[in-house]
């Protein structure tokens, strides 16, 4: 990639992303949001986050891939339980990382 094309990508991708973010915030003056849309939009956070989590845990290069030995699964399960019990973001992430590192160390120790 040349110097020019890298900066062209940055400029274009930046403009496109900003346009998507501003679309409805700025566009409201020009069109009215229908009332039924609210009902649909309340499911956006759950839908987006679930898909992103599932993809990062089970999808590699566009394919489903999972292994029983993957220490990320017990770590994610325990983190989800902590999130459910405490609703604490910090504790959730710390638990997940601690479990992951411990299990990885254990796997190395057991030479599994």
């Amino acid at each position, binding site marked *: 990639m040349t110097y020019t094309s890298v900066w062209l*990508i940055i400029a274009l991708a930046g403009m496109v992303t900003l346009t998507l973010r501003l679309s409805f915030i700025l566009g409201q003056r020009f069109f009215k949001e229908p009332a039924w*849309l609210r009902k649909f939009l309340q499911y956006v956070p759950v*839908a987006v*986050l679930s898909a992103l989590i599932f993809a990062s845990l089970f999808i590699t290069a566009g394919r489903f891939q999972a292994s029983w030995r993957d220490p990320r699964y017990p770590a994610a399960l325990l983190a989800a339980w902590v999130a459910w019990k405490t609703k604490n973001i910090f504790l959730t992430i710390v638990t997940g*990382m601690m479990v992951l*590192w411990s299990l990885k160390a254990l796997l190395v120790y057991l030479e599994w």
Partner: protein
Amino acid sequence: MRSVHLETLVASPPPEHPWQVFQRGFKTVAPLLLGIFPFALIAGSVAATKGLSLPAAMGFSVFIFAGASQLAALELMGKNASILVVVFTVAMVNLRFMIYSATIAPEFKTLSTPWKWLAGYLLTDQAFVLSNAEFEKRPGWGFRHWYFLGVGTGLWAAWQSGSLVGILLGAKLPASWSLEFAVPLSFLALLVPNIKSKATFMAGMASCGAIWLFAGLPHNLGLVIAILAGIFTGVLFENKAGV
């Protein structure tokens, strides 16, 4: 008369100041930094290892300011994809921002145009989810834009500083630390409190099922399909429960 007056005085919450609200938003982000910072480190180090100069790599983080799409773009640039394909992919990965924009737009309706531009620029996954949850609790809140600015600024600062450190470290970041795992963990922490009903639970399940089925589609279209599937499933179950 006087006692009635006093009572209303006592009952009303203490007055809020923009700066206080801003700080509260800023502080809400603090625990999320554990997820943002490693993500930014990775985005920065990938940019550096793909041969981007420091200004160009920082340009990615400042002008695009959306981690998943930055990584997707870098991946394609490494494969010498055409500029249009890279930009199109970024647009597809970031299509969800349009949904956030539509969801949060009513809250920002009365803001001035510069405020709207600022809020739009700072609209990320985490800023959306955190502010949306707070706005739901406080309809008609006069300081919501200050809260959003606090959240957005905190996330922005974490993203830019993490990117910078990542670029400077480059390939020196050990893969065995599995820092990338902090990303789904931070999403998990945001997701779980949002599962409040059967409808939201089913929305999440449908979204997972759809991404499983459609992950192989080009340009991250699977993600868009999954979001739509989740939304429609949620509404479907809500209607069922309601009638």
